[in-house]
């Protein structure tokens, strides 16, 4: 049991970190709403997805403690993202390169 406690003690960030992270997330959320008013064509979705990914990364690293986890947990966290990347990227490539044949 004492070992278990020492695991908890050793790695976890405190309220100060969580407050900073929460403020950062709130600012980024406000920023993405603000930026959406401007029109950059195709770049809008890129900017929105970059901001969303920064937010998701911050949540995973600090709120989900991923920053303090071992390598195996990182593999478990990143491997589905790799599969997701394959799924989305191959889907998008297919859509943009497919020549419509029947109309």
């Amino acid at each position: 049991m004492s070992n278990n406690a020492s695991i908890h003690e050793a790695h976890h960030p405190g309220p100060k970190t969580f407050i900073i992270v929460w403020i950062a997330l709130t600012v980024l959320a406000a920023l993405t709403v603000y930026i959406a008013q401007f029109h950059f064509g195709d770049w809008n979705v890129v900017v929105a997805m970059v901001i969303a990914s920064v937010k998701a990364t911050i949540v995973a690293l600090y709120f989900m403690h991923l920053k303090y986890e071992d390598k195996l947990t990182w593999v478990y966290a990143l491997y589905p993202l790799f599969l997701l990347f394959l799924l989305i990227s191959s889907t998008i490539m297919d859509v943009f390169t497919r020549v419509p044949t029947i109309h």
Partner: protein
Amino acid sequence: MDSTVASHAEEHHELDPVVEYESSKLGMWLFLGTEILLFGGLFAAYAIYRARYPEMFAEQHRELDVWFGTINTFILLFSSFTMAMAVWSIQKGKQTRTVIFMLITIICGLAFGINKYFEYAEDFHKHLYPQTSIFYALYYLMTGLHMIHVFVGLTILSVITYLTHKGKFNENYNTPIEVGGLYWHLVDVIWIYLFPLLYLIA
């Protein structure tokens, strides 16, 4: 094996606490991976149709009220913060404080659901239904599936809060709170992507 040895082993079937803690957490991360891929299928469908009908998506999404989505984004971000604080509190052995942070998290989750209820009501009032367009089919499917996850999360959090109140967790044993928290954060992460994709198409 001698029967007394077998019963002894059964009695002490629990793993080394550290191993038990690590494997519970790893199990949750594995489950979160399947959740990401579950939503991933819908994100892929979204990518296909948005690439194919960009004007339709840009036009259709304007009917949505950005304020509902924005308020819910802030609510979920705050609930993730209070969830992280709950985990931290129990790791310090402060049970009452943990219960308070858990209750705030639950209230935020309920507020999210109530807000979403009013939003759906307004959508229906505007005659926006799943069959209105592919955009709205995806909107209802993605937000609906997410909403189910919010309710599952609320159920888990309620049980954990009750158990914390009963004094089941302390600084030495709090794995369910930490693992339940991971699930709640994932619900937040999914909304982080749903919000700009559905509400903020320029």
